[in-house]
């Protein structure tokens, strides 16, 4: 039987990382990012990679770590406003960037994982993102053709997982992780809690283990980008 459980993030990436590869990385902002696997990817020394991720981390954390070491050649993202090093590398021409509307990016990952080569969407019609793309009129409205995305490797973060690779996400840390798990030729998941097979409620599983090739239990910092609170007396 194939064993999916690996002892740490470094060994979980062994044989999967190569120069020039395309990597999908789950998360929204710093919420639900595969912290351990991003560090392991940096430590693997892999170069010239294309990263598909909604955001680009912040300076010094998340994908910001891979920008610092200049291991990223190109980013495919919807929003990158939180990262000074990103802006610097992009404006100086060191880094390529492809902006995708957030919903289009999510659907491109979903489509890629589901074997759908392309889909038509109204999002972005008449804007820069539709330039050079085929359009088609359905019921009197113009739609633009967007293609499915597949990566060499997807790295995702879940709350709980089992030895089969079944995954359960928590709250808004789910975000891009489920679609990205389906759209990597190989998928490695890191989880906060790893349980023996049979302990997860099958009805509660968000990502079935068929999509997950390797799984590792991580240690998490779970940084907060914008700590907003209210005072108790206002309640």
């Amino acid at each position, binding site marked *: 039987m194939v064993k999916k459980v690996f002892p740490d993030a470094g060994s979980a990436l062994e044989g999967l990382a190569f120069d020039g590869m395309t990597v999908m990385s789950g998360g*929204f*902002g*710093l*919420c*639900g990012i595969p912290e351990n696997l991003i560090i392991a990817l940096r430590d693997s020394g892999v170069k010239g990679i294309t990263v598909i991720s*909604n955001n680009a981390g912040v300076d010094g954390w998340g994908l910001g770590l891979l920008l610092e070491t200049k291991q990223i050649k190109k980013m495919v*993202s*919807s*929003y*990158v*406003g*939180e990262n000074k090093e*990103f*802006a610097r590398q*992009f*404006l100086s021409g060191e880094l390529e*960037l492809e*902006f995708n*509307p*957030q*919903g*289009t*990016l*999510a*659907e491109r990952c*979903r489509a890629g994982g589901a074997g759908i080569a392309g889909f038509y*969407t*109204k*999002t*972005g*019609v*008449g*804007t*820069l*993102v539709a330039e050079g793309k085929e359009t088609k009129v359905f019921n009197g409205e113009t739609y633009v053709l967007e293609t499915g995305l597949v990566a060499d490797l997807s790295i995702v973060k879940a*709350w709980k997982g089992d030895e089969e690779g079944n995954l359960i*996400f*928590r*709250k*808004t*840390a*789910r*975000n*891009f*992780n*489920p*679609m990205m798990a389906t759209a990597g030729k190989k998928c490695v998941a890191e989880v906060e809690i790893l349980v023996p097979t049979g302990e997860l409620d099958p009805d509660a599983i*968000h990502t079935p283990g068929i999509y997950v090739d390797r799984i590792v239990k991580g240690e998490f910092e*779970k*940084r*907060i*980008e*914008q*700590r*907003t*609170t*209210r*005072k*108790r007396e206002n*309640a």
Partner: protein
Amino acid sequence: MPWSRDQLAQRAAKELRDGYYVNLGIGIPTLVANYIPEGMEVTLQSENGMLGMGPFPYEGEEDPDLINAGKQTITALKKTSYFSSSDSFAMIRGGHIDLSILGAMEVSERGDLANWMVPGKMVKGMGGAMDLVAGVKRVVVVMEHTSKEGAPKLLKACELPLTGVGVVDLVISDLGVFEIDKHGTGPMKLLELADGVTREEIAAKTQAAFV
């Protein structure tokens, strides 16, 4: 007197209706949540994967796994549900959200919106804005009437890269409220003026044609 940020949010809150599912953008639109009329049931959607967004948490109760699209820590409500980004945008693109309130750098008299990019200067990205304006039933823009340099933002045609073409239904600026006939050919209509603002003043600060 031009409307303050809170007055803008208050005016935008008048666009809410009982039972609406609403997506609020970052900045002034976020403040609209503070002015939901008493007794009105409005469900806030956050495009990072949540329906039924609650207020900020009490100090010490922040959960890094629970944030809104502005990456701020928030809380859940009894009715909350969580879902993936693709489900979230299926909701948005599929026309299931009633109202989107968001900011703008420029709006044209035909309802074109620009709010995501200044070539050569600002590298941030559109996030979910292009999907929201393409898919949500009604789109309301809340913004300052002019740029920091005093240039009009309500234009005949947008100069910045577009977020959407013919997508804005209503513009609430600090000087007044305009309705846009985005599917028709009629001119933009001035519906309201902020207290003490004259028609002449607003006309002088507006490039777009309006009646």
